[in-house]
């Protein structure tokens, strides 16, 4: 055993390399930590999360959970988080619709439609999101007429510069009784699935596809039955009506929320459109030709043959676009929507607790990202091809 063999031993060298790396990391961390302590001490700032219990004293424009200025900073940050989650969730749903439509339109055989979609994608993808949000907010939504001269769309839906008012459904006194029927209808769906599957297994020939309509008709029948058994309809339209300076009733989308939603949906939709297009085009032409030669129409081909295969290719990039949407919602600060980043910035201004605020912010966004990608990874695994 001689010393020389140590330095030639690859296992030793590997461990040494990692140890040196850790050492460098720790030294760097220690240096940074020392700088931070010195700087904070010099400025007389304290470190700690105690400020979260102090009253916030500032108002928040819109929140989906209750909030008063006398609530704590912690509650204010929670309001911001909920705002971010709501706009991200709604955004993901709508942007999928917009993106798929635009992607399919891009491949349409109608020249005008495909050029329109190409123009939309080309313009939106090549300009920054912040500029688009500001354009939506300052040049579109705020330019809408005032409440008195609102634009009325069928619905009725009112477009004003103070917000978009939608007709919604309102619960009446019989709603809670009717809710029971709703729950029964929901439970009936897996029961129907089980019945049909058992019947399919027992039968020797495939069941008629008309049976799948049971998924729709049976729950609908239950819901309708519950509604007519009540003395009063359980839901009535909640129509916005002009009273005084504002609309009362209906559901209101504030201008900031509306601008943010439209901006995010159109921006991410353009990227998803490109992904959809690439995914559909990546499906081998042979599949399409075989489907056509079997007699399927072109819409059937798209629906039954091309799209399921394209879906496998599309899911990972679409996942990262969903994550981008959730992260891009932080640009809301530019147009005044109180999302997590905006409220965290205000809190930092009032308290000076920079490092704690940044940690909270980054952890929140990181959790949202990890959670979303976890869900999509599960879905991705389920639809992957099992190769031989």
């Amino acid at each position, binding site marked *: 055993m001689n010393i020389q063999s140590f330095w030639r031993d690859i296992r030793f060298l590997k461990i040494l*390399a990692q140890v040196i*790396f850790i050492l460098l990391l720790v030294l760097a961390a220690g240096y940074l930590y020392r700088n931070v302590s010195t700087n904070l001490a010099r400025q007389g700032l304290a470190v700690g999360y105690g400020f979260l219990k102090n009253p916030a004293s500032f108002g928040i424009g819109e929140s989906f959970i209750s909030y008063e200025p006398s609530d704590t900073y912690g509650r204010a940050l929670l309001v911001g988080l909920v705002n971010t989650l709501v706009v991200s969730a709604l955004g993901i749903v709508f942007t999928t619709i917009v993106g798929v439509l635009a992607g399919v339109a891009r491949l349409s055989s109608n*020249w005008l439609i495909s050029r329109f979609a190409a123009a939309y994608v080309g313009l939106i993808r090549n300009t920054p*999101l912040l500029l688009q949000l500001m354009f939506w907010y300052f040049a579109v939504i705020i330019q809408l007429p005032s409440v008195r001269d609102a634009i009325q769309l069928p619905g009725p839906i009112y477009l004003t510069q103070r917000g978009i008012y939608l007709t919604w459904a309102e619960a009446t006194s019989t709603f809670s009784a009717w809710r029971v029927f709703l729950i029964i209808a929901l439970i009936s769906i897996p029961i129907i699935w089980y019945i049909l599957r058992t019947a399919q297994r027992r039968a020797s020939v495939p069941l008629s596809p008309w049976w799948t309509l049971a998924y729709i008709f049976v729950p609908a029948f239950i819901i309708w039955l519950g509604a007519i058994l009540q003395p009063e309809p359980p839901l009535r339209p909640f129509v916005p009506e002009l009273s005084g300076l504002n609309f009362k009733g209906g559901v209101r989308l504030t201008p900031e929320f509306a601008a943010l939603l439209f901006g995010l949906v159109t921006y991410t939709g353009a990227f998803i459109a490109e992904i959809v297009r690439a995914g559909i085009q990546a499906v081998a032409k042979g599949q399409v030709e075989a489907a056509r030669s079997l007699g399927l129409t072109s819409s059937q081909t798209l629906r039954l043959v091309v799209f399921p295969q394209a879906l496998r290719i599309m899911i990972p990039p679409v996942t990262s676009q969903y994550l981008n949407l959730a992260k891009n919602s932080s640009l809301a600060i530019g147009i005044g929507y109180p999302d997590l980043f905006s409220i965290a910035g205000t809190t930092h201004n009032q308290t000076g607790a920079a490092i704690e605020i940044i940690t909270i912010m980054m952890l929140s966004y990181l959790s949202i990202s990890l959670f979303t990608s976890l869900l999509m990874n599960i879905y991705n695994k389920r639809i992957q091809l099992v190769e031989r």
Partner: protein
Amino acid sequence: MTAIETSEVRPPVLAVGPLAWVRKNLFSSWYNVALTLLAIWLSYVLLKPAYQWATTEARWGVIEANLTLFMIGTYPRDQIGRVWLSIFLLAALIGLSWGVWKNAARGFAFIALGAGAAFILIALYFGWDVWDEWLISEAILLISYFIGRFLPRGALMATIAWLLYFPLVFLLIAGTRYIATLPPVPSNLWGGLLLTLLLTVVGNFGALPLGILLALGRRSKLPVIRYFSIGYIELIRGVPLITILFMASIVLALFLPIDVRPDLVIRAMIGFIIFEAAYQAENVRGGLQAIDRGQYEAANALGLSGTQTMVLIILPQALRAVIPALFNSFISLFKDTSLVAIIGLFEVVRISRSILAQSEWLGTHREVFLFAFMIYWLFNLAFTYGSRRMEEALGVGKR
């Protein structure tokens, strides 16, 4: 056997020619007809008022009055010659690259020529007086093209010239106390498109070495290095860019020793480098994964060490494969520089907002925003075109 009489019969009108095209593309089935009519009606309803507004009501004077603000922000007007010098040097370099590498750089050269010509025409039409500088830059481009064609060892010279260009431009724009003709211009005066381009270039090219290191670290077999790389990449990719810029502008000063206080532009550049490195790492990792094992084995068989293999064999191939992704990230970083508007730097978006606050141009939202859109859109389009021509010439993805 009688000869079959054939006579020239023209194909039916509805099968070839423009009418056939219309029929096939626009009116082939009933719902296509409906869609076409809908599209025509929509374009009439949307485009006609827009066209009317653009030609009659819009006050385009706001653009003309503030063009310099859009381009260079509050950079001192008497030092504007330095900016022009940088543009001339860029034109010379593009021309030189075109002459040396011909097809690969041809796309960019055409863009530069076309853009210059367009600027000259627009300036002449509106009566601006910048057209002579653009003429000079076009002339420089053409002259350096001819120089490039006949330059010995052209590729080496051009590469060295490109590598020297970026520090030189930095020196020109920032100035220094040691050169009398280049008085220092503090970075809080930089703005507009100048600032956007500076941030993009520094962010992209500064992040590339770090990205390569992270990609190699991610593929390393040493668990500590691998987990560190993965942790960094996933952490940075999981948070929005604005939080990293916020961190750079507010918190970075806390991590530095007391007397090191870089100004906001440098801090924003550091933030962009930190952010972009994680994304570049993923791009380079994709390129590394595309190299097949045969290359490693052949290098091994030839007796090259691990480092030599990586540097001489693998990385050049990997980097060539990721050139499209690199251009993509250049374009997306170009758009993302608009976020520094939120931390207080006056790039194009924030300059637009400050122009909207000028008393004489109140209410010109649409004109100003549309112009800002145009800047980004045209630049991205030009860059996409040039990069696609370069990829075709280099045969990326084909061999």
